[in-house]
């Protein structure tokens, strides 16, 4: 659960600074690359089996053979973390994509349609965003089954209003802009106007906003998995690993904290890259 606000004021003023990639952003990019490799081809990073239990070596501290130590069943935590990247990244990506799509369509319709339609759609978004995100997702899962598909749908539903509002505001902005007015005076057809002028300018900023939103989606997916609503044990999902190892915290902090730390570093990297992209994007305009 992180509080992602698309409008978080950029820390450290961008004013007067060149738009080169700062070392921090490069590091963040490398972290993301590593996570992506782990998600796509975990065997490239570690050859071990994430489910192989070894009770004789349970709860061992991090060492040369077990970089992140072992958990209560003697499974290698590092291997599990590497294999877990797939769950977090895929559920984050798919749910963000779905919520951007659903929110984007609703927002675009609200921004372009006559006032009555806009009013109804905006109110619907208001209603949906009155439900705190985790609780709305829990409600959705109560009606379906715990597991990755409903987790993804639940998060997509919970975050759609956020994108809907951004797209609606952006659409209204573009609609009232000088170049659209000019195009209307030139007698462009409505379909052509929307397709050629409104759509590109509305959708432009979305990838950047979605990058920051992706981090929030990943955190929320893990939080719900931590609550037992996502992939079930023994799946090496990061949040589920934390929940499983919470009871062994006294003797083996690494089994809970290292997966959590990996998740945090991934999300921080996403946020950092997202903010950097945002600055670039805003600077260009």
């Amino acid at each position, binding site marked *: *659960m*992180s*509080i992602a*606000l698309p409008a*978080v*004021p950029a*820390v*450290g003023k961008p004013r007067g600074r060149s738009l080169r990639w700062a070392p921090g952003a490069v590091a963040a990019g490398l972290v993301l690359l590593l996570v992506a490799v782990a998600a796509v081809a975990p065997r490239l990073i570690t050859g071990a089996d994430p489910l192989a239990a070894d009770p004789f070596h349970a709860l061992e501290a991090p060492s040369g053979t077990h970089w992140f130590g072992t958990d209560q069943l003697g499974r290698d935590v590092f291997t599990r973390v590497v294999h877990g990247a797939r769950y977090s990244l895929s559920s984050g990506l798919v749910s963000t994509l779905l919520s951007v799509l659903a929110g984007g369509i609703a927002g675009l319709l609200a921004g372009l349609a006559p006032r009555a339609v806009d009013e109804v759609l905006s*109110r*619907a978004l*208001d*209603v949906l*965003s*009155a*439900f*705190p*995100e*985790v*609780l*709305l997702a*829990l*409600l959705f*899962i*109560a*009606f379906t089954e*715990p597991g990755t598909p409903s987790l993804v749908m639940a998060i997509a539903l919970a975050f759609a209003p956020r994108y809907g509002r951004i797209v609606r505001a952006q659409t209204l902005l573009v609609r009232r802009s000088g170049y659209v007015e000019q195009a209307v005076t030139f007698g462009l057809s409505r379909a052509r106007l929307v397709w050629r002028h409104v759509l590109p300018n509305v959708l432009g900023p979305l990838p950047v906003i979605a990058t920051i939103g992706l*981090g929030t989606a990943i*955190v929320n997916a*893990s*939080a719900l998995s*931590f*609550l*037992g*609503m996502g992939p079930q044990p023994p799946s090496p999902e990061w*949040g589920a690993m*934390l*929940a499983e190892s*919470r009871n062994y*915290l*006294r003797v083996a*902090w690494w089994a*809970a*904290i290292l997966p*959590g*730390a990996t*998740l*945090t570093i991934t*999300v*921080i990297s996403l*946020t*950092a890259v997202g903010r950097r992209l945002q600055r670039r994007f805003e600077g260009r305009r």
Partner: protein
Amino acid sequence: MPPMLKPVLRRLGSGVVVLWAAASAAYLALRLAPGDTVDTLVGDGPDTPQIRAQIARDLGLDRPAVVQYLGYLWRLLHGDLGRSYVLQRPVVDVIGSQVWPTVKLTLLATAFSAVIAVALAIVTTGRARWLRGLVSGLELSIVSAPGFLIGILLLSVFSFQLGWFPVSGDRDASALVLPAVSLALPIGGLLSQVIREGLERALEEPFAVTARARGLTRLALLWRHALRHALLPAVTLAGTLIGFLLSAAVVVERVFGRPGLGEVATEAVGNKDIPVVLAVVMLAAAIYVVLSTLADLAYLLIDPRLRKG
């Protein structure tokens, strides 16, 4: 204040509409839920057509949908949230005892986050670049970190290693400290960014120069004059923060094994006890709508420029 009346009524009205629509959506969800209500209630008990008819009559399921819907709204207005499928008790009884632990937690967390945010912002405003960079980095990490990780870190250090606080439960005030801190840190981190930005802007205003010329110390200027301006933008964040607080409380309660609405909701999701889940979610939505409406109204009071509506 007649000019203020219109925007206030407008805001209140939209709050009521959102609440009504949320309740209706919940009703629709309940009706569309997979599984027949009568089936669920019969469960493993005796199952005859008479008993089924009796249950349907007791619940009013034999009446037209509109009547049922109006009856639902009427009961909701009177605080009747239905019956738990699993526990066979009124939902109000099930969640009633769990409201206070959650409220207690969120209130303390709010207080902590305000202290953290203001302290961090005042200490770092206008300070050396490296210090601000360091604090901003910390804030970014805390805001990005999942709530359960912060909770588990605190638990690991302060409960298991140092033994200062109890590991779980809700026996006394000391059990409340770590959960409240883990809720407060991300909110404090976010708010302090906003407040610092506001403080820096306020310090560029002429009144700040005047105050400094009168011989006010930097701290007094920040605390007595600039902070008031800096808090304004923070009020607009209230809605987001309330939503976050309610969401995060669910997870933090689980981390610390505390009783509360989150615990009830999580358990009810596992049991498919939909009336209980719905009740908690609607309660959260109602709290969100009421508080964010109040925050908007407060904003109207503070900033006259918005009153034109």
